[in-house]
């Protein structure tokens, strides 16, 4: 099942943990965000293979923005 992993809140992209083609397990962190002075991992819910990484380190994301897409 395709999964779109979205930002829950306004945040800076601190580090990307996956690249296109990587296999991601359910519950695995794909990106570390920085917001509210905290480092917050963003987890995949269902898992799958990374098809698109839509952000780069240092980007600012808005609530609801797609970060990573899985197939």
């Amino acid at each position: 099942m395709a999964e779109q992993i979205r930002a829950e809140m306004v945040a800076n992209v601190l580090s990307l943990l996956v690249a296109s083609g990587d296999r991601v397990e359910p519950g695995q962190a794909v990106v570390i965000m920085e917001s509210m002075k905290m480092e917050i991992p963003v987890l995949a819910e269902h898992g799958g293979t990374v098809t698109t990484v839509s952000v780069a380190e240092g980007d600012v994301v808005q609530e609801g923005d797609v970060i990573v897409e899985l197939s």
Partner: protein
Amino acid sequence: MTATEQPAPVAKKVKVPREDDPRNPNKRLRALFDDGTYVALTADGDSGMMAGHGLVNGTHAVAFASDATVMGGAMGAEGCKVIMAAYARALADEIPVIGLWHSGGARLAEGVVSLHAVGEVFNIMTRASGRIPQISVVLGAAAGGAAYGPALTDIVILGPNGRVFVTGPDVVRSVTGEDVNMERLGGAEPHARRSGVVHIATETDEEALEKARSLTHLLGAPGELESSTPIVDVDLEEHLPESAKRAYDVHPLVQHLLDEDSSVELHERWAPNIVTTLGRLGGRTVGVIANNPLRLGGCLDSPSAEKAARFVRMCDAFGVPLVVVVDVPGYLPGVGQEWDGVVRRGAKLLHAFAEAVVPRVTVVTRKAYGGAYIAMNSRALGATRVFAWPGATVAVMGSVAAVRILHRRRLADLPEEIRAEVEQELADEHDLLAGGIEKAKSLGVVDEVIEPSVTRSALAAAIVAAAPLRGRHGNIPL
């Protein structure tokens, strides 16, 4: 003659549901109760509703079930009388009542008669609110009146085929042209994640009934905690990450804070930045409220404040002590939150805590900042006792952020190369003056710094020492 002594509604045309029909209400009720303990309160009939009583894990409870084999479980005057009889019994015996729902709502053919009867059910549910635990299990479609019935109760469980909506897809399509199926309109995704109507969504009917049994036992047989109750301590610190900035999932900490295998989480997927879990501590039912840093950094926001407020009021109404695990960076800022009523809905949490009379104990594990510090059962709101783990901070905001505001001009005038250094010096100074746990202790807003490894026994002792009061109010579905 009291309501409990009224004869069961007499069916005009008896139609016994087929034994092999999975919608058979007798079958569902028997599955809910301990083996061989179910006793029917009403005769089989075509009222569309069955009721009975029995034991759930040895605890006495009443239950009713829609009979979806008769007119899709639609509720008429006779069926509503069955629910009224179940409630009269539960209220008289002061025991939990469980509703198993599978109904298209009020019986169209009966017209206003059925609307009036459904309204009377809402009335008795509201009058019973906060007096006896009310649990709903939605096993099939629950539309219109059958949607608001569960919604008025304390806890709503949704089975895999459960659907809750005011109007079904056909009406939606004919009125607005919107094309939507039953699942998208009233299944687990909308209600367990987006609307908060449903507290627990399950994969199977059996699991839904099992959750109802666990919750009935937690609320109907809360147990007692005494100073002699043995409490096994476990070190909870291992559930925190090493870096203070790092977010983490609070669930393992909540699990280990409670007795093994005793907990049931409510609203797991809705507003997941706060965790609300019923479980046992030393055998006594308690309600745990914990910020979850993994989601939204653990910030309070509009839905999470409302979710926690309702949970606090439910626990208070049933005399269930509260344990509040605090690690909160603040309220989530932003336009979305303001427009979503974070001030109005956030106020509900302040109100709920300040109003609560049950023993309610706070543990600050890492940090408690700003307005969210006040909201998370602070001393000012009347906490029974406030503990902090070593190294925890209680402050208006982080010290660096604070000095950037307090010393904005001075910092701006400094050469770039020494700014960070001076900022840190000012921050350390600020910590000593305004933040830090010692300061909080001297002010009396934190009672005691405890080691994470004795948290369970400290919580139990604080609960035992407090008066076992119970709030006198209903549990409006906030």
